[in-house]
């Protein structure tokens, strides 16, 4: 009989990207069995969202998944709008799209930095965070907060864009490809990086679908499924972009897919900036959106609407909807059940990380301890998203 070593990796471990615990059964350094244990960050967001109004719940999505904040808000807001049967004005939609794509870049940069530091490329983390900081500065400029924005509203946005927004984004995007190339020189052209990621954590397309994987994990395996293309939402149908797809389904392919996605995001933002329409940023429906502030001093009616909307909240019709967006980690969906009251009966957060993480044991069949780190980084989990 062979003796095996059972190793508990985490929940406090530098490379598990949060409080993830892995129970590894090892023979030497080769993994025989692996079981992820989750739930250390379970905060009961779904339950809490049942106790608050639709408007108040806007604050939860970016806290569930704290790397791609605007995409989260977008997902929730779109779900509620679908429930109400309204769409945001065109300008609001485009602004949301720009911010969502910036979020995607910001999130992928965190992936890149952490994936690199998991393989001890310490410098890249700082470079990535430097770029991410610039995006967060733009976010702060727009919403007043760097991460937990609370900027999207049901039916539109809180404010219009500030002065100088387009120039600032443009400046960032102008410089961005050069930096990406620099990072690619550090990693893609690096023999050790390729050796560490190519053929590691392989997931076949069939397995990826059977485990419900989405996002770069699924696309890295060669399945071209992107919610932005498959079920266009929020105006994505109007823009030209490609969906990068890998072929081997290994960690390197996922890395490639994300790198290319950042370039595609840039392409989308540039198109959107050019075609940014003028117009209102909030629907003109007093049952859904607050009246403009300048009306509050002049019109008694506006004040009454304000009081009514704030103190009672929005009353969507009874029914249930599912709306999803393409988050940097995969399909992020909100399934909202309404009974016609001002609070949802049930908010289900379909998180991509949860499903993707489930495929980890498959990826690491007969892998080594050193591969675990690569695999986790390549799934790019956010534990807040997994445990909710």
């Amino acid at each position: 009989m062979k003796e095996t070593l059972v190793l508990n990796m985490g929940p406090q471990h530098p490379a598990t990207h949060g409080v993830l615990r892995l129970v590894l059964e090892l023979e030497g350094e080769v993994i025989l069995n692996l079981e992820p244990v989750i739930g250390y960050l379970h905060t009961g967001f779904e339950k809490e969202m049942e106790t608050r109004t639709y408007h108040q719940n806007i604050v939860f999505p970016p806290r569930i998944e704290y790397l791609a904040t605007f995409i989260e808000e977008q997902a929730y807001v779109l779900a509620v709008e679908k429930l109400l049967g309204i769409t945001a004005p065109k300008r609001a939609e485009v602004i949301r799209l720009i911010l969502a794509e910036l979020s995607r870049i910001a999130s992928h940069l965190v992936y890149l930095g952490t994936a690199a530091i998991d393989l001890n490329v310490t410098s890249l983390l700082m470079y990535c965070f430097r770029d991410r900081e610039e995006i967060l500065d733009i976010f702060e400029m727009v919403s007043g907060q760097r991460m937990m924005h609370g900027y999207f509203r049901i039916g539109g946005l809180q404010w219009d864009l500030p002065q100088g927004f387009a120039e600032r984004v443009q400046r960032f995007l102008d410089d961005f490809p050069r930096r990406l190339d620099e990072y690619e020189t550090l990693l893609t052209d690096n023999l050790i990086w390729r050796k560490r990621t190519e053929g590691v954590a392989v997931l076949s397309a069939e397995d990826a679908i059977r485990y419900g994987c989405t996002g770069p994990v699924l696309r890295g395996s060669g399945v071209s499924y992107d919610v932005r293309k498959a079920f266009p939402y929020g105006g994505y149908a109007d823009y030209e972009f490609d969906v990068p797809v890998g072929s081997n389904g290994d960690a390197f392919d996922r890395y490639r897919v994300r790198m290319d996605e950042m370039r595609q995001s840039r392409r989308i933002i540039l198109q959107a900036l050019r075609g940014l329409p003028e117009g209102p940023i909030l629907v003109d429906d007093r049952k859904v959106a607050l009246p403009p502030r300048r009306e509050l001093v002049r019109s008694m009616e506006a004040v009454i609407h304000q009081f009514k909307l704030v103190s009672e909240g929005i009353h969507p019709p009874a029914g249930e909807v599912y709306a999803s967006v393409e988050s940097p980690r995969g399909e992020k969906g909100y399934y909202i059940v309404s009974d016609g009251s001002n609070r949802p009966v049930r908010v289900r957060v379909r998180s991509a990380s949860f499903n993707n993480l489930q495929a980890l044991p498959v990826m690491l069949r007969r892998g080594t301890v050193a591969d675990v780190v690569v695999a986790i980084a390549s799934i790019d989990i956010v534990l807040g998203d997994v445990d909710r």
Partner: protein
Amino acid sequence: MAVTFRYLFRPPITILYPEAKRAAVQPRFKGRHWLTLYDDGMERCVGCELCVIVCPSQAIFVQAGENTPEHQVSKGERYAADFQINELRCIFCGFCEEACPTGAIVLGREYELASFTRDSMIYTKPMLTEPYPGSSGRDPKREV
């Protein structure tokens, strides 16, 4: 390797906090709360409790009091006799600012809100009210 070598000669991007602060926070920054005044020194808050209701983390407490001709505090019938914000509960979402019909509560620019006791983080009305009109950085003559 050349890439990292190039970086060796670039100036650092981090700042030496706390000696050097961030150049300026954005005008929209959501920081600590202020209760603003009109330029004649009257309080804007009329004690309507909309901020209490909208706050997702229930960090605000308001107790309304009736204005009397001898004791006129705000420009409405009522005023906030007590107004407290538990800054530890606050998530700085800015919903209160948006809900306030008179534009009384605003989120300021200060972000250094650390303290040693929980008690000192419950801001009371004297701490929240602007010392003089406009000291929070908002124009006291603005409409809402």
